[in-house]
């Protein structure tokens, strides 16, 4: 089985073969012998790699796998060979013409600083969200005309919930 794994700032070709509890994994040509025990389905496992034991939890949101181990979390985009080549030939998507401003963390909306139709500068604050006794300004990256305001003061918002949509200038 061959996979292509993309991390935040690197990309790797990975070949994996299994025999019993042992996996032979080759990452960019470098071989690893891995002893893996699945603990609770394929999402939690104990790995021994280079004689070091790791307990790992793998979860998945959208196209990204979240791998947590030792208190650290890695985001990995994993593609099969087929997907990888299909994607490579399709090329990048064009940049969108609107910006969705999302909440970076869950919290309570304290105030909304813009109204629909208003034209704002890049970096202008649009919403103030309070979480754990701290107020945080959420700003527009691109600036432009405010297309829609989706929250009002007092709303409880989730992480990554869209607050305001901007038509790019």
């Amino acid at each position: 089985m061959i996979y292509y794994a993309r991390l935040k700032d690197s990309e790797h070709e990975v070949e994996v073969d299994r025999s019993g509890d042992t996996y032979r994994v080759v990452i960019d040509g470098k071989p690893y012998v891995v002893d893996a025990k699945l603990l609770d389905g394929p999402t939690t496992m104990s790995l021994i790699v280079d004689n070091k034991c790791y307990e790992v939890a793998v979860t998945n949101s959208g196209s990204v796998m979240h791998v947590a181990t030792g208190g650290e979390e890695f985001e990995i985009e994993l593609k099969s060979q087929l997907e990888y080549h299909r994607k490579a030939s399709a090329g990048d998507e064009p940049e969108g013409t609107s910006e969705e401003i999302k909440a970076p963390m869950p919290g309570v909306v304290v105030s909304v600083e813009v109204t629909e139709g208003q034209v704002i500068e890049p970096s202008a604050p649009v919403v103030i969200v309070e979480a754990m006794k701290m107020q945080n300004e959420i700003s527009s990256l691109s600036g432009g005309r405010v297309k829609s305001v989706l929250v009002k003061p007092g709303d409880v918002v989730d992480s990554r919930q869209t607050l305001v949509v901007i038509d790019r200038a």
Partner: protein
Amino acid sequence: MTEGKLFKKVLVANRGEIAIRVFRALSEMGIGSVGVYSEADRLSAHLKYADEAYLIGGAAPSESYLNIERIIATAKKAGCEAIHPGYGFLAESHEFAKACEDAGLVFIGPSPESIKAMGFKTKAKKIMKDSGVPVIPGCLAGVTDIQQAEKLAAEIGYPIMLKASAGGGGKGMRIVRSREELDQAFRTARSEAESYFGNPEIFIEKLIERPRHIEVQILADNHGNVIHLGERECSIQRRYQKLIEESPSPAIDSETRKQIGAAAVLAAKAANYRNAGTVEFIMDQKGNFYFLEMNTRLQVEHPVTEFVTGIDIVINQIKIAAGRRLEYTQDEISWRGSAIECRIYAEDPMNDFLPSLGRIKRVRNPEGPWVRVENYVYSGYEVPVYYDPLIAKVITWGADRKSAIARMRRALSEYIIEGIETTIPFHMWVMRDPHFLAGDFDTSYIDRHYVGDSRRKRRKTPPEVAVIAACISAIESQPQKKDGHSRSRWRDVSRREAARSWAR
């Protein structure tokens, strides 16, 4: 309440780790415990450690943990004799302390009058100065003209700080390093004070550069006995939020320790204080210390003092509130070794300490010799947005400061919290930083030395391990092959037993 008799049942008007801390003390004393919770805290672990738990209102603190009427009604309904406020929320509310008294409940803390007096910072400083506790030179002298200012500044000595008498939050503040800068600075400060606060009066006080924050734990009973349990070093702060505390302070010698302890006892007596309290001082680079304020409650960082003295501060709070005399004289207090506390916040230290909320996927707490964890989060818990971001404290003890730090490094390396970011990586950095190891720091430490950005590596797991795990998980999640191999392996290890349906 006759001397000696303890309470039958006590309500803890708080949540999170400090509620659990107090429940534990009550349990050890054989006293029944009553917990309260808001609608957002139905799954908070503190419910599990209380003998009884009552819903007191909505998620917003004003509807629940700050709702005096509701809390007192719950205490009466449950048959409690006393209320422990923890820290934060109503702990320093003299109205709450008074309301308890009026309802015939014992407030486990100082009198409403002491809380109120220490709550007004200027009034508190005045009381201390009158009683002979050192305060920052000049701090209580308001001036309105430049001649007064010049005279006072000359007495105090430069550098000085100008502050609006009516001010706060840094507005109208000016540092003046020499006589030459005074005229201009005084004019500006005065006009800012006038325009912001409608009062041009200015306080002039000695500027303490790069101060340390040192505080002293005191215990006072209702019979006039006051002792101190030594100092805590709390200089590692950001935005006035403490992150690391230790006892003893590496900056204090035994002579200064004696003096600052005596000053704290004097301060407590001046405040007519009873129960546990903390006298905060700032200390300059030469070791001069000055009264800053008094915290009329249990501190977050009380465990470091408990570790070195062997005295349980919470149990003593409860005994004192029940009318008991202090069990120790000052001479009987001894200090052993060194203790340090790291506060674990749900904040991202690589991203300017922004709140990092969400569901905690997995927690593994440190354990083992001389490690104490005060914690309330668990695997699967969703940290609510409404309250303080403190999710845990790790406290270690060692025969000396170096051992306590080495043990803290070990404890932090065992600590796993997955799903949200925490201050653990920050603490790991501090525990290896040469300035910290040398004891060479002050309240500006984090601004001067800590660079937390996302390029810094948080831990030490090689990314290859994550790639390997992702690929194995992908392979093992494949739909069943013709030979049935993948599927059966999955089943082998999946031992989770689901409850069968009983319905018909």
